[in-house]
């Protein structure tokens, strides 16, 4: 699904150049649930930015579902993001004047799905995250866990190839964190490919594979026994 070969990225800081990613090789198969771990400065955010087509690499290859991702124009990148990727953010990033349903429908709007169909589809995904009764509520009327579930529904609405979650439990207490992870595990059970960036050990162990980044290189890449979040909920 995802194939990365010898990926390099450096940032210019004045006259100095900061080499952030120093040759990443990395492969994700369909249906995997991968945790990307690392302390701050390890390059995990930069990797996620590149995976999310929010930033370009200096050198190396990146193939997503067989499509080479290279030198994209803004418009093309937007189209690819819309088609291939679903984002889940630490701070949810719901649009505060849109109802839960409208938030979920937003990626479909950018896919130019007709309004009615959009709403039906959005409602379907809201139901899947168990928030159908809250469809008409504004984000400000929802709890943190509910917001993240709306965000997950939004990420899934466009039926992307890969879900990218950036610290999805970072802003949640442990109980709600497990609820969210439970949902992520269930979505993964259905065959969706998911990448989770986290620095929390327990969250990482709820995935099926942990990739450890340190100083711009992968220091560890191991398959693990998945801890089901269900038991903590």
């Amino acid at each position, binding site marked *: 699904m995802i194939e990365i070969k010898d990926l390099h990225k450096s940032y210019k800081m004045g006259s100095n150049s900061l080499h952030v990613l120093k040759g990443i090789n990395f492969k994700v198969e369909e249906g995997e649930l991968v945790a990307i771990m690392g302390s701050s400065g390890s390059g995990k*955010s930069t990797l*996620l*930015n590149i995976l*999310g087509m*929010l*930033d370009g690499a200096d050198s190396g290859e990146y193939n997503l579902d067989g499509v080479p991702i290279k030198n994209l124009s*803004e*418009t093309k990148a*937007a*189209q690819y*993001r*819309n*088609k291939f990727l679903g*984002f889940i*953010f*630490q*701070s949810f*990033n719901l*649009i505060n*004047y*849109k109802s839960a349903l*409208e938030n979920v429908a*937003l*990626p479909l*709007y*950018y*896919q130019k799905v007709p*309004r009615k169909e959009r709403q039906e589809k959005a409602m379907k995904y809201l139901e899947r995250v168990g928030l159908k009764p809250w469809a008409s509520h504004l984000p400000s009327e929802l709890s943190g866990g509910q917001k993240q579930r709306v965000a997950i529904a*939004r990420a899934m609405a*466009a039926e992307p190839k890969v879900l990218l979650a*950036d*610290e999805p439990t*970072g*802003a949640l207490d442990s109980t709600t964190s497990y609820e969210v992870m439970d949902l992520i595990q269930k979505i993964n059970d259905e065959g969706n490919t998911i990448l989770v960036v986290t620095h929390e050990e327990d969250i990482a162990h709820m995935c099926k594979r942990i990739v450890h980044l340190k100083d711009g290189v992968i220091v560890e890449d191991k398959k693990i026994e998945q801890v089901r979040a269900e038991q903590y909920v």
Partner: protein
Amino acid sequence: MFDRDVWQEIFNTIKTNKLRTFLTGFSVGWAIFILVMLLASVNGMENGFYNQFNDDATNSIFVRPGVTSKAYGGFEAGRRIQLENDDMEYLSKSFPEDIEFISARYYTNVTARYKSETGTYSLQATNPEHQFIEKTIVTSGRYFNEADQINKAKVAVIGKKVAEDLFKDEEPLGKFVELNGLSFRVIGIFTDDGDVNAEQRVYAPLSTYQRIYGNTSNINMIALTYNPTYDVPRALEFSEKLEDLMKRRHRIDPDDQAGMYVFNYAEAYDNINSFTAVLRGVGIGVAFLILIAGIVGIGNIMVFTIKERTKEIGVRKALGARPNQIINLVLLESVFITTISGFVGLLFAWMILAAIGPTIQSPAFSNPSVNTATVVTATVILIVAGVLAGLIPAMKAANVKPIVALSDK
């Protein structure tokens, strides 16, 4: 453009920044208000000018003799020029193509009497074609014709005001009115658009009056209309030719401005048109300068809004919004604010003009009003202004990196 989601966003940003939107919108509304008022004033001036001679055909030329100011052709200066019937015939023969209607005019004041009512009115003795030059509208009866002219018939066409003064409730048609003691049959009553004074006039056949006043063939002036298909330069060329010819005929120095006046409405209209065009240009210019302040204001508020919404725009981009969709959104919002506030200004100006406009009636200024051209001008300016105001903010918004959605600080 007529997308519900787009409008929902626009209304939301406006709603969350009500005061800010109002204040900046006000500057645009104010500019448009001033623009419309200025244009309406120019309109009013134009109306005022045209009213000065709007009872005549716009393609009229008047030939009036004067007193020479230069010695020429063996004559001393100070010679009074007299036009006669021959002059008119000469002109109509010389310019058969150029002249539409031509008539001589002979004026005098008459005391008119019917039964016990009397009044003093100005009388114009003319040829039948004069009706079309002066745009006399005969409301009942008829104008005099060629037969009346040949028979030197004592018939009169009287103004509406004259009819009201002398005949009160009686029907004047067919009655005899005494003009300076001579009995004339009333054959028609006329009214004249826009000129109340004209309705206090009496028209009679030229030949009749020339006989009454000592069998003369003198006339006071010649009025004519040129071929209505002529444009201004062609009309001016014609009237110059006509002036040259008349001056030669009466042995007046070609450079003598006093000996013969040829007054061409085309020239006057042309002058007024260029004058009001300049005024209108100045008006638009001034209003546009004021509008620039408004544009900067709107641009400012938009930049601010974009800054506040940077994260949201980033999220939208991460979700797949294309740059041009973001640009559209910002431009539409900007055009929306400018257009709405502009139209409020326009509406205010229109209401004020509708309320006070008709009450202003002075010779140089009448009925200032908003016409379609003004509304179209204002609309075009507003949309252009909106696009200009939104341009920089839109580019700023389009350049927002979707990474900001991920940087949770």
